[in-house]
């Protein structure tokens, strides 16, 4: 069996990394309780065991299948999840526990969500004004127009209302908002959805711009290709769990994904083999005993079906949840 060597950082380096930590999520779970037929109650285990670490000036992509509860993940971190759901786990922001009170204060100021829907802007307010509301310094209008130019928008867009803007333009306005604000953490929910090839590249470039501004960006996406282009780290999300966190440097050096699901996702890309594994991911109503990927995994053994693998640390920010990872 292949054994990974742990990177032994010096104490000083470790401390530096710790200080630079922006957000840390551990054992996050989200369960929705709802009424089934008659009086029976049903539980949906949407997020089961989610882990994530993000530093200042870093882009982390969360990649997962559609319908796997990725958008709820953002809601859970921000504390805007549906009322009939229970969130459990630990979230730390800048090394301090994120309590309900603190979260309310940070939301919209320090932590900003770029929504998936392009109808999230106020339909009656001029676009520029909406960006302006997020700025703290004076001489707003000029500054907003400068930011518009930075993201590739015509400064005249300032006076338009959202219905006059295309979907691609609205996404750029969202980026402009993120740049205008003093937020340190940006959560972008499916920023590339429904864009054509050129616009996707443009969008990824703009996400990089946020990163250069020393902001942390969490990019939630189903598009592994886009994630690999822009992210420093990729967290693969499957059936409500983090199954793998991989550093892009590892992939750039020719390394492979370590978890069988991530590998299947990689092999399914049209340019890599277009291989479709059989069957779909377990539904949220199922209570899982073993590994969530055991039924689909080509390498699954008896152990995988009985025992749930834990997230193993490979280096300080790379992890994998598999007994036979990397084999």
């Amino acid at each position, binding site marked *: 069996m292949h054994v990974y060597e742990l990177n032994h950082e010096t104490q000083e380096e470790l401390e530096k990394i710790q200080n630079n930590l922006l957000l840390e999520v551990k054992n996050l779970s989200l369960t929705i309780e709802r009424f089934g037929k008659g009086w029976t109650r049903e539980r949906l285990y949407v997020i089961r065991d989610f882990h994530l670490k993000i530093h200042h000036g870093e882009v982390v992509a969360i990649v997962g299948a*559609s*319908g796997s509860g990725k958008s709820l993940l953002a809601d859970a971190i921000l504390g805007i999840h549906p009322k009939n759901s229970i969130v459990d786990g630990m979230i730390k922001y800048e090394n301090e526990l994120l309590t309900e009170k603190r979260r309310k204060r940070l939301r919209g100021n320090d932590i900003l969500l770029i929504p998936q829907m392009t109808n999230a802007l106020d339909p009656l307010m001029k676009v520029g004004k909406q960006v302006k509301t997020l700025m703290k310094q004076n001489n707003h209008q000029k500054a907003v127009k400068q930011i518009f130019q930075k993201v590739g928008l015509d400064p005249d867009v300032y006076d338009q209302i959202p219905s006059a803007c295309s979907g691609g333009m609205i996404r750029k306005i969202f980026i402009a908002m993120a740049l205008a604000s003093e937020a340190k953490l940006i959560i972008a929910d499916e920023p590339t959805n429904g864009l*054509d090839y050129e616009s996707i590249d443009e969008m990824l470039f703009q996400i990089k711009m946020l990163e250069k501004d020393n902001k942390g960006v969490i990019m939630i996406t189903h*598009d592994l290709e886009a994630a690999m282009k822009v992210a420093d780290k990729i967290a693969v999300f499957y059936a409500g769990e983090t199954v793998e966190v991989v550093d892009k440097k590892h992939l750039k050096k020719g390394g492979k994904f370590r978890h069988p699901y991530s590998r299947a*996702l990689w092999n*399914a890309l*049209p340019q890599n083999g277009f291989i479709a594994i059989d069957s779909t991911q377990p539904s949220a109503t199922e209570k899982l005993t073993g590994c969530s990927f055991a039924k689909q995994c080509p390498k699954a053994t008896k152990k995988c079906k009985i025992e749930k693998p834990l997230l193993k640390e490979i280096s300080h920010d790379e992890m994998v949840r598999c007994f036979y990872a990397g084999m």
Partner: protein
Amino acid sequence: MTKWLGAFMLECKNIGFYYNRSNWLFRNIHLSIERGEIIGIYGKSGSGKTTLAKIMANYLSPTEGEVLVDGEKSNHSEVYPVQLIWQHPEQAINPKWKLSKIFEEAKELDQDIPSILGIKEEWLNRRAHELSGGELQRFCIARAFHPDTRYIIADEITSMFDAITQAQIWHALIRLVKERNIGVLAISHHISLLERISDRIIDFNQLKGASEKSF
């Protein structure tokens, strides 16, 4: 081309369309799809690909030109032989229906189609909001396979899904259309996907550009 050859094709002849009289979206589009052939088409968003798809599937009438299905003009009294599959399945399925009713829409659906598409028995009793987009899209594809269907237009049908779901759906769809000798027009901005699935790839902007020169 001789007429008997044209009889087994979906043809766009000289098609033009505008939403606004002063601004033609496209003009003089010529395109033909043979039975059993998969054609991929890509282009920028907003260039009119979906409008062309709607015209070919008879959702819209072209401002000029005509669409011929196996050499004939459309006949409204029967099931239209060109079926369109949309990008957003959740918007194309009645949210109040149980999914088993989707199959009734297609009337005489072949027995093996659901299993080829990977549709599970237990999904049939659910409603649209209880399934994921990828699962719903399989129903949308299944109902397009009416026995009279001869051509399918697939407009970005997997762009909302992850790579595994995308590969599953396309493998199933390719198997079904090849077995039934159905012609497919696949619209996508994902060129590497089109390279995998299509027999021939067309750049929509070139198609438009070629016609502009001939004005």
